[in-house]
Each structure stands twice: as C-alpha cells, then as structure tokens.
C-alpha cells in the first residue's frame, strides 16, 4: 500500500484574492477511507474540489496514482464525486443517470447495460431503473448518485457531506453501506464532513482541518484520545478546555489551583474525566440532565462552567446546590495552543 496515492504538494487554493487554503500538504493512501473534517469555511470542500479538478490551484501540485494532474481538466481525471445535493439529472431515468458517464465513454450498449445493472445492484436499487430521480426518496437518490460514480470505476471517489441530507435512521444505514462498498471495491474514498461522530465512525484516518491547514491527522482513536491542540480537543468533544499557568487553570472569570504542574499551555477534560462528589473544589449545579448510563451536570465554579458526568447510582444533586469536584491529572489531556 503506497503512502501517497493522492498527494497535494504545497497546494494553494484561492477564490479571487483570498486564499481559502494557503499551503496544503496531504498524502492519501490507496484504498483508504479518509475524512476531511472541520467546521464550515475550513477549506475541506475547497480541497476536495481541487482534487476533483473543479478548482485549479494557484500554486502547488496535485498527484494522483503517480501522475501529475494539476493541469488535467475535471472530465479527464478519472475521479468520482458524489455531491451533497446528489446533482442527479432530473430529466433522465435512474438507469440513464447511472449510464450517463458510460455512454460518454462510447462503450458497447451491452457493456453499458451490464455495468449499469451491476452498479444499481451494488447499491440495492435493482428494480428502480425506470424511475426518475424526482420519484425516489432521499436515501434512494443518495445511493443512485453513489452508483453513478461507482460504475465509472474512478481512481478516487470523493463524497461531499454524504450523510448530511439524510435522517438519523437512513444515516446509519448509509454509513454501513458506504463502508461495505468501500471494502468490496477497495476504492480510495475521501469524504468531507463537519460532523466528528460521522468521521470517527466511518474513516480509516481523519484529516482535521482549520483555516485551510491540516490541524491534525490520524486514526479516529488517536484523534479522539489524543487531540494535539485546543481546537482539536474542542472538535473531539472535550467540553472542558482551560488555559494553564504553572499549577493553576485560568479563565476570564478566575483561577483554580491544581495539585500538579501543568505540562502544557492548555489542559482539557472530558465530562467523564471530571470527578464529582469528591475533591478539593466546589461548584454550584446550574443544570442537570439524565443521560441513560450517567447524569450530566453543568457546574458553576470559580473558573466558569464545567461539564461533568456522575454515575447514575449516585443520588441526584438538585439544581442550586453545591457539589465538590476534582480535575484529576490522570484524565487531563495536555494540549498545544
């Protein structure tokens, strides 16, 4: 498995005068399912459009499968793209949508038929050939868009927010479907998302982006357990992120003494890493909610609000009452600025 099936080398992408992505370096491995994750405006969609050839970089190189495609137009790149809105052709039947690209390749009619039928079977749409996209549900349209890209046997398949237009149940179904298709076909997939749970669940590796740069790149478990920066920690669900000075945490509201010296400029705790009902600090409960296996509290402390979780066995502390808590060294995640 090569480490650089798709490479972006010093790629700068601009809209007019503003550089949306100033200098991106990224290597995507063959056959992996990689997620470009980040908030809106972080450059993830822009980067994906550059790989597809819909946006020409103002500098840098894009290499796919050993060939420099920086100047190759989108229609000659051999890349698939599933659009967020699916971008199906409303005037064509489902069959003709899938066959669209094959017809442009001037394949024999029998071959077009065979590939289209196989493609529709892959995504479970056999029997829907004659339907128009407008007569299909959101989930079916999504799978049709996927089939339309897959039958082209692209070197890389790009997916723009593939699950964002689906309801919760369909989203889970489609997630499994994407993983299955990826394992079956071994196709290299790059998908763009702003939803960290989606990225964590689906991707082999996650590229966390911020302001057009790669903030952190790693396996989902690495990113989840060991975010490197305050931004990454925030994105990975560390609710309590504080600036540290020596053996204390400081915020605009005040400070809180720690019983250890902070090893990094920032420290973060997940709600589950905060000890409740035992410790040297005290906070007032301002919110409390039942979450199945545990109870979630929001505590008002000298430092500001702290989110904590208590085991469901412990008695509930009413809102307004004070409770003791601790921010232990063992669950603290040190973070770079």
């Amino acid at each position, binding site marked *: 498995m090569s480490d650089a099936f798709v490479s972006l080398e010093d790629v700068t992408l601009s809209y007019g005068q503003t550089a949306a992505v100033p200098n991106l370096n990224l290597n995507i491995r063959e056959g992996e399912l990689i997620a470009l994750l980040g908030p809106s405006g972080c450059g993830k969609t822009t980067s994906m459009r550059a790989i597809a050839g819909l946006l020409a970089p103002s500098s840098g190189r894009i290499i796919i499968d050993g060939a420099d495609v920086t100047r190759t137009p*989108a229609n000659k790149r051999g890349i698939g793209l599933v659009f967020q809105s699916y971008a*199906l052709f409303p005037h064509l039947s489902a069959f003709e949508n899938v066959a669209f690209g094959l017809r442009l390749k001037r394949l024999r009619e029998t071959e077009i038929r065979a590939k289209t039928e196989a493609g529709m079977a892959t995504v479970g749409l056999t029997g829907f050939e004659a339907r128009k996209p407008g007569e299909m549900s959101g989930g079916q349209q999504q799978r049709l868009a996927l089939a339309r890209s897959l039958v082209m046997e692209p070197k890389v398949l790009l997916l723009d927010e593939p699950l964002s237009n689906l309801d919760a149940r369909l989203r889970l179904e489609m997630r499994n479907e994407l993983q299955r298709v990826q394992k079956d076909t071994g196709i290299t997939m790059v998908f763009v998302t702003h939803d960290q749970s989606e990225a964590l669940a689906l991707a082999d590796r996650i590229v966390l982006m911020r302001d057009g740069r790669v903030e952190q790149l790693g396996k989902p478990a690495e990113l989840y357990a060991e975010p490197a920066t305050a931004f990454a920690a925030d994105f990975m669900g560390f609710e309590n992120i504080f600036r540290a000075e020596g053996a204390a945490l400081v915020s605009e509201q005040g400070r809180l003494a720690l019983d250890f010296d902070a090893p990094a400029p920032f420290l973060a705790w997940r709600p589950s890493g905060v000890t409740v009902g035992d410790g040297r600090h005290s906070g007032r409960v301002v919110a409390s909610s039942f979450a199945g296996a545990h109870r979630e509290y929001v505590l008002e402390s000298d430092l500001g609000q702290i989110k904590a979780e208590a085991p469901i066995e412990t008695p509930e502390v009413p809102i307004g009452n004070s409770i003791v808590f601790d921010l232990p060294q063992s669950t603290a995640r040190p973070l770079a600025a």
Partner: protein
Amino acid sequence: MSRLAIWTILGITLTFLIGPFLIVILAGASAGEALAFPPQGLSLKWYAKVFTVESFRASFALSMFLAIFGTLAALLLGIPAAYALHRYDLPGAETIRTIVAAPVIVPGIIVGLALLRYFVVPFDITITMALFVTHTALVMPYAVRVVSSSLNNLRADMEEAAVILGCTRLQAFTKVVLPNIRGGILAAFILGFVASFNEVPASLFLSGPGVRTLPIDMLSYMEITFDPSVAALSALLAFMSVAIVFIAERLLGFSRYV
C-alpha cells in the same frame, strides 16, 4: 365577502376580459356590409372573405415569418445571454439585464422612430430586414427573462456532475442544461411569437409600401374599407392565439414559466 359580491366581481371581470372578444366575433359574423355591433343578421361570408384578400395573405405570411424567425433569432441570442448572466459573475450583470429588457420598457413608438431614423435610413436597410431585426430585439427580453427563470430552477452542481462524469463544458450544456430548460425555451418561444405577431407601434414606422405586418395591414385596410372582414380576421387571430396557448399549456404546463 358574500357569494353575491363574489359573483358580481367575477361577472364584471369576465365581461371586460371576454366581452370585447365576443363583440369582435359577432361583428365579424354580420350579414350586413358595414362594421357594426350588434351585427345586422348572421353570416360567415366575412370569415370567408378574409382568405380571399390578397394583401392579408401577404401580410399574414410576413407576420408569420417575423414571429417564427424573429423569435428563433431572439432565442439564439437570448439563451446564451441568459446562460452567461446566470452562470458567470459578470461585472455589470444587472446593467446588462436592464439593457436587455429595454425594448419592452421603452414605448414601441420611440423604438420604431429611433430605428427608422438612425438604423434603417442611414444604412439603407430593406424593410423586411429592418422588421426582422426590430422584432428580434423586441422579443429578446422575453427570451432572456423566461430562460433565466428556468435556469434559476436548475441546480448549478448538475453541470459539474456532468463534467466529472466526462462531459466537456459544451456537452454538459447540451446534455444536461438544455434538456432541463426545454420547457422554458418553448414558453419563451410562444410568448415571443405572440408578442411579435401582435406588435404594432414599432412596425408601424418600419412598414413600407407593399411590406406590412398583418396588424398594420388591418389598420390600413380599415381606413379604406369599413367592412366586417377585419373583425372576422381579428376573431380568427384571437382563436389562433388561444389555440397556441392551450396546446402549450397541455403539452408542458406553460403557466409554470410565465
């Protein structure tokens, strides 16, 4: 509002909309010799006479030619214009839209006078050619407007999807954009056709001896011969317009685009 009031308003509205139409139909069906309402007896002789008037035949042919080819020319120019205005972030796009709409905003008399004085006379252009150019310009706003609105209903990423699947830009336009704005183009054609066919003020300036559009010909016919054949012809033309719009509505839900 009471039922009576609703029916009264509906009745008055319909009277004003359809009333003149009925008067013209009946006036044309008169058995008398002069244009009058109510008609003096009923007969279809004036409807028959319409087809025997030589100048009507010639001017009908000219009007048909202008309506069909003027509108086609307007679409040929208007579709790319609408596409460019829609697709690209052009500097001064709003100004261009206003200029394109100008021929329907500026009174036809002024358009006709200006064209005659500064276009037809100095360049010594034939009357047919001048009428063709004028009708093309007058129909352009309809072409651009209606095609623009159906382009607005089209998702921009469909073209990109077509390109990713291997289309050139031109193929993406012909294979994906055009089929999806087909209804709008047809609607623009019908609107343009009707507008051109009924155009009077600008054509009035440009019509010359022996070369007249049908409405102008009808005007000058009436100045000389005050018989009911003009009413009969008007009724026939109205029926033609109604038939075109009816067929268009049936075929493609015309009213969605207008």
